[in-house]
């Protein structure tokens, strides 16, 4: 079944995202926020804060974290977990950079929309 193989989809190049910023990728299962850090790493997590579903893509990116624009929860870009005293987590997605292109594996999102 397709869930056992990676399905990399080209979503654009790293320069499409501002440094310490984010862009949104729309999928049938909802929006995914794709982040670019100061060190040019890229991460993909659901664009909905575990607190009140705030759009994380609109937050301020610092280190490997983003602060939600609605109520200042800090979410790890690496694993989607809320940092500090807050508890909660959002889904994260495999993302790799090849020759400057960003390749996203949407399998998990598709599984979820099928379920």
């Amino acid at each position, binding site marked *: 079944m397709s869930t056992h193989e990676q399905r990399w989809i080209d979503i654009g190049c790293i320069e499409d995202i501002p440094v*310490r910023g984010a862009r949104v990728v729309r999928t049938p299962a909802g929006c995914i926020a*794709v982040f670019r850090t100061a*060190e040019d790493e890229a991460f993909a997590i659901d664009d909905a804060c575990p607190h009140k579903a705030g759009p994380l893509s609109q937050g*301020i990116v*610092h*280190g490997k974290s983003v602060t939600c624009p609605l109520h200042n929860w800090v979410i790890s870009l690496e694993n989607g977990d809320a940092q500090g005293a807050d508890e909660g987590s959002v889904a994260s997605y495999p993302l790799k950079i090849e020759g400057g292109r960003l390749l996203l594996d949407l399998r998990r999102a598709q599984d979820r929309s099928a379920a």
Partner: protein
Amino acid sequence: MTKKKLVVIGNGMAPGRALEKLLDTAPDAYEVTIFNAEPRVNYDRIMLSPLLSGEKTFDQIVIHGDGWYVKHGVTLHKGATVTAIDREARTVTTARGITQPYDKLIIATGSLPIIIPVPGHKLAGVLSYRDLDDVEAMLLAAKSRGHAVVIGGGLLGLEAAAGLKEQGMDVTVIHLAPTLLERQLDTTAGHLLQRAVEDRGIRVITKANTKAILGEKKVEAVLLEDGTRLPADLVVMAVGIKPNAQVAKDAGLEVNRGIVVDAGMRTSDQDIYAIGECAEVAGQVFGLVAPLYEMAGVLAARLAGDTVAAFKPSAVATKLKVTGINLFSAGDFAESPDRQEIVLRDASRGIYKRLVLKDDAIIGAVLYGDTSDSAWFFDLLKKRSDISPMRETLIFGPSFAGGSPLDPTAAVAALPDEAEICGCNGVCKGKITGAIASMGLKSLDDVRARTKASASCGSCTGLVEQLLKTALGDAYNPAAVQPMCACTHLGHDDVRRLIVAKQLKSIPALMQALEWNTSCGCAKCRPALNYYLLSTWPGEYVDDSQSRFINERVHANIQRDGTYSVVPRMWGGMTSAKELRAIADVVEKFKIPSVKCTGGQRIDMLGVRKEDLPAVWADLNAAGMISGAAYAKGLRTVKTCVGTDWCRFGTQDSTGLGIKLEKYLWGSWTPAKLKLAVSGCPRNCAEATCKDIGVICVDSGYDIHFAGAAGLDIKGTEVLGHVETEAEAIEVIAALTQLYREQGRYLERIYKWAKRVGLDTIRQQIMNDVERRRSLHERFAYSQKFSQIDPWAERAAGKDRHEFAPMADFTRKEAAE
């Protein structure tokens, strides 16, 4: 009882301390008059170096503010140089002809810098380093970013060099001896110090003899004996000081190198005393603060009636006040056959420690790199303690000698009560711990106020904090200044000051220079830093949109469902059929679900999808409307009533003034949002008296109010002042806004800023000091040149397109599959 007249010539640290003690023990004995040749109050001269480097401000180094003199009934003549003492008539006379009788006279004229009389030493640009005027002249010269040559590699010379380097100058230190600080350091430590100084980008030339200072009208270069020519826009002579005894000599008092006094500080005239750097006791003159403060104590006691208090100079220690270089030396460390030494070197960590021993006691100590044990060694030195039982581990400090763990608090806790903690003020550990316990002291400032410990040069601050920690445990909160956020230990005000002092012009440069402990800050500090840089360097700093909250990044207000609201400007709350028609068309075209009148007299369109924003703005722009900045930490609205246009009570054209203000102030960024209102008469229909800035029009002109609040807090405004014309009202409001822009902490509304800095200081600067108001207004006007660009028009034309469109959209593709 009539008070005796006590006259003091000089207002430095020694007489300041003597008066403090005297007023404490015998508050009613004397009527005190001080003549200060400098035009100012008593300040901490030891802190001139941090002032030069930008780490401190003048206010922070004032010892006695004007209030102190008033409170104690002391008359202070500022800028008054005493030129003659008439011992027959018992009077002193100043250069401007004031004559003042005395019963007792204190001469505390301090010292004069030694100026080497080489050719050119009188050229403009050749300075000494003794007082605030010197520092101000250096700061002015440093603005050129040119070359500075410091003659003299002693304590003052090195501190001046480091300060000038911090100010961006290219600095060379020339020093006569083969190694730096040769009177305080041995050769090895001198070389280590030289390397550390050179690592800061300061050039050091030793064994250098100055032949001449060259230049036509002002200094251009320094010529050395060996023919080397060093370009120089500024020359600082820091080669030493000599007692300033001229006025005493002219009065016929016995003067040798300094004014000769006995152990009770009395000169050859029984009614005249001398203390400080101008005094000579038993053939010795003194330049460090600790013995000068001891003299002050003796003099105060004598004046209060004590007949036996006597000055006994004790060993003194020296520390270099250059941030990042730790250096301590005390006692005598010349080599001699009857002396032994213990040396510890750790070259890779840059540590060097040397103890000089004689008869099983420490007589000299040099610590470089790690000075944490200096108090312990100095205590052993002063007491001449027998160190033979712990000689083998002595050099490793008290942690090993006592076998206790390597915990800094434990090391301080292990010190005996008599151990001196503060060398400047001679305060021992027992006095500090006693004061903490008996007076319930809670903070460093408390300890400084009550015991004077760490109140002068501040280098023992760490030790005092450890004592507080030991005494109070977790109840001690050392962060007296609330840091901006977890990324730094610096508070907002420190950061703002250092941005200017260190010429920091970008967020990465700032985080590097101020040693941020995170790689790129956090959501708390980045927006604040972006604002501070933007307001400090208008036209130069490039705004970092990624350090702004989403609302300011996309120029609309995010709503709970992730859509946005859009508010166009309606100048002074006035609108027209054309604007209303355009708004109606936009609402229908983009199916905007809600339209609402705001509290600031304009119209809010709520529920706009993010990707529609640029098109919405383009349509509003087409009708002549621009962003209302309803999302900004900046100028929001100027609410008005209809004033003389329509109202039968109106006294002035309040609508017109409101529109003028809004057209002048729009686009400006401020620490927090800024809302104004203009009411045409005291009935105040525009509710101006709860705004950040409000104007109430009256028949005779305009009452300007500020610091109101009607949000989380409710607070009526305070009156700033009254002006007669509309032009003055606009200037006052722009100057007030600029003062707030320069002093407010990020997210601090005007009323909180005003409470913090004081309403009167604001009124003074805006209403009374016309020069200050004008310069604030000029800075505001300059900054506005760069800020009045409609962000909507820019984005409708394509700027930041990535903000408004998804990167990729798989919803349609998937649907087609």
